[in-house]
Structures are given as C-alpha cells and as structure tokens.
C-alpha cells in the first residue's frame, strides 16, 4: 500500500471521470467529468438527489463498475487499464463495501459472513475465523457469532456488514446508504461505529440521503446531474476543517471535543496501522 510509504499520495484521485449508459438515442450520461481527490483518513459524505450518479460513482470507486472516460488513480496507480481479475484482487485487498440492504450471504452464519472476504485472499479457514471473531469482538457482537443473518436486528446486521467490510483491512471503506434501511436510533449507532472506525484512521466514503448524517463526516460533497456541485472543502485545504453549520445537527457530542479526539486517535491508529500493513506485506 503506497499510502503507508508516502502519506502525501491521495488514496483516490479522479480526473474527468465520465460514465454513460445506453447506446445512441438512449444514451444517458450518469457521471459527467468528476474531479475528486480523497486523502487518507477522510470521512466523506456524498449527497444529492436520486439519479445524480452517487451510487455509480461509488461503484466505480469500488471497481465494481468501469468508467467510460477520465482517469482513476487508486493509491497512486491508475486502475482503468487493469483486467477484471486485477480489479477483483484490488477489491479483495483494498476495498470494503457496506450496503444499504446489508447483503449478508443468507446461507452463512455471522462469523462465516465476516470471514468471507478473507477467503478470496487465500487465508486458511482457522485463521479466517480467528480474524473474523476478533473483528466481531470490536463491534461487541461476540455472542452473535453463530447466529444466522435473519436472526439479527437491522442494526446488528449492519454492524456485522461493517465488520465484514473491515476484516481485510481495506484502504477505503465504501458505504452506500448504510442507514437507509434502519430506524433513526439504529442509524445513529451505525454512524457512531463508522465515525469510530474513521477515528481509527480508515478512509470512508459514504453515500446518503439523510442530511443529519453528514455531521459525522469530515467532508461533504453534493452531486447534481453527474457533477460535483458543492464540496465543503477544496481538495487542497487541510483535512480537519469542518463545515460548522452542519455540526449543529450532531446531537451526540460537543463538536470541538470530538474533533480533537478524532485527531489524536487517528494519529495513533495511523501508526499502528502502518505497522500492521508492514506485517501484511511480509506475508
């Protein structure tokens, strides 16, 4: 992972990204020249009306979809020309997905679901389950390890899904309306979890319809008709400057305190993370 070596390299750099669907008369431009730079440790909320291309952008960032034009650099490397097998490898190594409808595999129990991404990294079953168990413990779900997905509440299910997204230690976490199917109480629990993992140094990109949730984010981007309409931060501005108007909506904590905490924690976890990544590369 390049960002561990060179912290100034942005995790994601998009230049003039375009995406079109359909052919001829039915052609429809979903993304129309998106320029975006995301640095390590940012928590980005993408807002916008339906059909503005948020989810498409997220899918392209997660390499589930390909752009028709423009340039996408992930950790400083262009990924457009790579094969689909290489894309799968990048998804396996560097991307964690959290979905609106959770998308746990219904046949598998909680711990197997969390261990699933490690399967595609060739981790042996015992080690896989150990890692999954450890990850579930950080989400206080240890007693639920052998539950089946349908036996969980919505909030629990989404926490399992987040645990699964994090188990392979990704450099970006992509969340597509993670609270879209949850009540407001569970939503806030999930958002607390997300902001928690953000504080541990993870890069999170979240699509949401709910303006109140943007308060958890360090940067808010609104999209309109396939373009970035507003960005709370110029890409060149310092990371921790947060739009204070949005802060008011956060009912849980004092804005300044959390901010400071976040700084400290993220510094700490950056150190630990770079250690762990070095370990990872040794393997």
């Amino acid at each position, binding site marked *: 992972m390049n960002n561990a070596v060179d912290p100034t390299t942005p995790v994601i750099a998009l230049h003039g990204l375009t995406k079109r669907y359909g052919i001829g008369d039915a052609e429809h431009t979903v993304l129309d020249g998106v320029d975006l730079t995301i640095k390590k440790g940012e928590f980005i909320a993408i807002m916008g009306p339906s059909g503005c291309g948020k989810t498409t952008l997220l899918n392209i960032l997660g390499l*589930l979809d390909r752009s028709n034009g423009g340039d996408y650099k992930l950790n400083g490397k262009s990924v457009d020309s790579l094969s689909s097998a290489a894309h*799968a*490898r990048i*998804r396996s190594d560097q*991307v964690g*997905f959290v979905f609106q409808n959770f998308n746990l595999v219904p046949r598998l129990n909680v711990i197997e679901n969390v261990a699933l991404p490690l399967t*595609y990294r*060739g981790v042996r079953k015992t080690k896989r389950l150990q890692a999954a168990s450890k990850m579930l413990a950080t989400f206080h779900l240890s007693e639920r390890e052998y539950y089946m997905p349908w036996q969980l509440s919505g909030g629990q299910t989404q926490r399992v899904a987040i645990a699964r997204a994090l188990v392979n230690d990704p450099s970006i976490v992509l969340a597509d309306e993670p609270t879209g199917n949850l009540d407001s109480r569970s939503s806030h629990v999930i958002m607390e979890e997300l902001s928690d993992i953000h504080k541990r140094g993870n890069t999170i990109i979240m699509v949401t319809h709910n303006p109140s949730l943007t308060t958890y984010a360090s940067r808010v981007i609104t999209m309109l008709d396939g373009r970035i309409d507003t960005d709370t931060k110029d890409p060149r501005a310092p990371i921790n400057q947060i739009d204070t108007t949005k802060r008011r909506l956060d009912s849980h904590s004092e804005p300044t305190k959390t901010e400071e905490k976040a700084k400290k924690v993220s510094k700490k976890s950056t150190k630990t993370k770079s250690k762990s990544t070095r370990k990872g590369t040794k393997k």
Partner: protein
Amino acid sequence: MRLLLLNHIENAVESLRSNRTRTGLTTLGVTIGIASITMILALSGGATKIVTNQVEELGGNIAVVRPGETKPPNQIENITSPQSNAYATSTLTERDVDTIRGVPNVQAVAPLMVVSGSVRSGDQSPAASTVVATTPDLQTIVNFPIRDGQFIDTTTNIDTAVVGSQLSVDLFGTDSSIGKTFQIRGKTFTVIGILKPLNKPINYNNVDFDHAAIINLESGKSFNQGIAQLQQIDVKATETDKLPGVISTMRQTFDKTHNGEADTTILSGEDLSRPTSQYFYAIAATMTAVAAISLFVGGIGIMNIMLVSVAERTREIGIRKALGASNGHITFQFLIESLAMSIGGGISGYILGYLFAFTLSRSLLTFDPLFSWEIAAVTLGVSAVVGTLFGLYPAIRASRKDPIEALRQYH
C-alpha cells in the same frame, strides 16, 4: 489468481448440503447412468475374459475341427455352437479321427460326441447337464484337474463316467460320489472320477464340463446304433510351430476324404475366440450407447439444477464479487459444485453397478463380473467429464453476472 481449491470444495459441500433433496436427486441421475455403464462393462468384460482365456488355454498348439462349411472368421454366426446341431447329421465321423491320427506331428486327437438324453439318479435329474462321449485323449488335450478318482481310459469298463463337480452335487448332493451310479437314457453308469470345479462355461469345446458327464466314445455310440455323431474333433500338435503344417495337411486330407465337399471347419488360436469376443463387444457397445443416453440425461439434470442454483444465488454472486471474488473464483465455485455432484454420482454409480453386476451374475449368469482399473478409470473419468461439460455453462454464466445488477436482485 488464487486457486482456493480447498475453499471451493468446502463451499460446494456446504451449499450442496443445504439442498439435500435436490442434490440427492440430481446425483441419482448420474448414479443410474454410471451404474448401468459399470454393470455393462463389468459383465461384458467378464464374458470376454472367459473367451480370451480359452485362447491362452489352447496354448497355441490346439486346433479344432467342426462340421459345416468354413465361414469367414469374422461372422457372428460362427459362435453358434455345434450343440444346436445335435440332431443334424454331423459331417465328422470316426473315419476323420483316424485320418487325423495319420497326419504327421499330431500328438493327440479327441472326438467329442454330445449325447442327447437326460442324466438321472433316483428322482434327481438336473436339467442343465450334458453327456459327452470321447476318448481318453481328451485329457491329454484339455488337461482336466481331477478332484477324485481318474479320467476315463481304455482299460476301464465302458459303463463308467467322469462327472463334473456341479453335476455330482446336483445328482448325489455331494462332490465325493466315487462308485455311485446314475442312469443315462436308462443305462447305468458308475462314477470313476470327479473333476474339480472349472467355472468355464464358455470354452472351445462348447461344453460346460462342470455340468457334464464324460463317458467313453463306445458307450456314446451305443446310444446311436453304434455310429459316432461327432460335434467336434480336438487336435493337438506336438509343437506350436508344427500346428500350421498340421492344419494344412488336415485340410488337404479332408478335401480328398470328403469328396471335395467343403463341409468341415478347422479353427485354431484366435479364430476360435474372435467371433465370440466380437459378439460380446458388439453387445457391450450397443448397451453402453444406451447407458450413455441415461448418463446424458443425468448430465442435463446437473445443468438444469446448476442453472437454477445460479439464478437463486445471483445476489450471493454479487456479494462475493464485491468482497473480492474474481470471475475465475465464481466459475470454480459453481464448477466444483457440479463436479462434486457428478463425481459423487460416479462413485456411488460404480458401487451400485458392481452390486447389480454381482446380483445378476450370481442369479442368472455363470461368470463373474470383471474387476479392472480400466472400468474404474472410465467411470470416474466419464463422470468428471459429465460434471465439467454440463457444469461449465452454468458456471460461466454465473461468473459473467454483472455485480451491480446481481446486488440489486431481491428474492
């Protein structure tokens, strides 16, 4: 690409287990196909082995003279046994036996006369028995293993007989029946020897000696107004390389003694077994083709179920892809699932096939099914091919699914 074979196998077992009934029924299709192929191959292999064994038995220096004109060696009708002509006048006579004795390099000549008529002892009259009248020379040619007593010879009484082990059991309820008597067409014979079980119902003499009573040619002639009706003459040359010479001399002599009539057939070596083994091969090939149809149907069953499974698990495919599975991983996952079903069906079919084969050979047939690694390899190979062939299309279809579309699916 990471192959993850072990993971895929775990996964396949897991997913097949979650649909036990469906998996079982699909596997059954392959099981039946493989079972029938195994059974056919094992039984025809067993039958063919008996035929090829006779060639080895002949030892390369035995020729057989049969009545009837010489037919092209490849015709299936050649296997029609002389026994079916038992009531037709044979063109072979005792004179021919004497003629052959005069041919140089002949070590032994034995005429075979199958006597029609039942064998009886008290109220026991086994139906499958045969009475063969011959000379002591037959022992020189065939070299029967004697369990007890002796083979017929020139010094013994004409009313003596050597019986096959099974006939002895059928007649007297024991296989040590020396000195006991039985009737052939009302005439009493004394047992002077018992053969060991041969278990060779198909041989170049066309007599199942396990069920036969061997009597002297003179006794046999007495049932036929003193005239020998020979079904076959066995000729043994002194050495293997002398046999062709013996055969051509016999042909020339027969041409003279039978007034130029081509009414005898001289067979040796593979000519004896070839028609028979070809006959079995033809039957086996036809039956295998029929069994292959059932296997094909089984394969279609696999494809059908795999397509259903892929459709059902579209969303799972999407999830797996989002979590880092490549197209190759998905292809393998489904391919291994179909392979697990077909190979599972193959193994159970192989076992079931031999169970059927043994049941059949014990109850209806007189020979054992053949065990060979070729049959195991063929059944395993065929089931693997079926699994791959019919699993590949669903697997590729699964792997080609667009992850975004797949994730959007609800069920």
